[in-house]
């Protein structure tokens, strides 16, 4: 029976698609959605440290304030910030807004830029709150 089956047409996948920004935003949305696990872990560690007491909170602050900690925090913020920006874009898509190619491409670039600037802004606000 297998002999009689012609090779079926396959749907084009990543390697044969011309790169376009709307595809990238979609992939990034899923990737950052999974990566946001790290952000939740940091948030929960912050809450647990707060609950544990001022000494444990100081230890948490030292950890997140280290070079590695700041890198992880910034990565988490980029992930969360992008996911929020593109999430809003998706909610608008769900309302039927901005689905045409041109608008979707422009909004795609907008959310990528917002993802980074949002993270930088939050980082800056964090430093400002700490009085640095």
């Amino acid at each position, binding site marked *: 029976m297998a002999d009689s089956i012609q090779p079926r047409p396959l749907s084009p996948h990543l390697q044969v698609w011309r790169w376009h920004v709307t595809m990238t935003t979609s992939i990034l949305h899923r990737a950052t*959605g*999974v990566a946001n696990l790290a952000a*939740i872990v940091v948030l929960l560690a912050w809450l647990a440290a707060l609950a544990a007491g001022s000494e444990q909170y100081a230890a948490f602050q030292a950890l997140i304030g280290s070079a590695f900690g700041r890198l992880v925090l910034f990565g988490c913020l980029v992930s969360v910030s992008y996911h929020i920006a593109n999430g809003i874009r998706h909610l608008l898509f769900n309302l039927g807004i901005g689905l045409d190619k041109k608008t979707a491409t422009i909004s795609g670039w907008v959310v990528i830029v917002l993802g980074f600037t949002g993270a930088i802004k939050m980082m800056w606000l964090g430093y400002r709150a700490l009085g640095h």
Partner: protein
Amino acid sequence: MATKDFRTPLSKARGNGASGHGTEHVIHQRALAVGLLLGFIYAATSILFFTNLSHQAMVEWFSNPFNAGVMALLIIAAAGHFNLGVQVVIEDYIHKPSSKALLMLGINFLAALMAAIGILSIIKIYLGA
């Protein structure tokens, strides 16, 4: 978009589409997304603009029931939204039924654990850490 609608009035009323289920998954995911968005905007701006992130300032922030409540709901919504989202990712990439079931169970437990850690911490801070 001007194609004929072949759905029966009953299938339209049920609103479940071809698979017969799953609509609630999509709706829950979006409802949680909107909740997360509002909670995140409130918590992030309130904490970043009106505290200095010190232990004392945060304990004070959490002693306000509205703040503690928003943060608790934020954690619950995050756990729920994460659970539903990762479920779709698992469904897309893991095809072996046993691995799929095991992973989904693991994600469910992870989401429950997130909610538990978050809420217990918030209650403890609220009551005075």
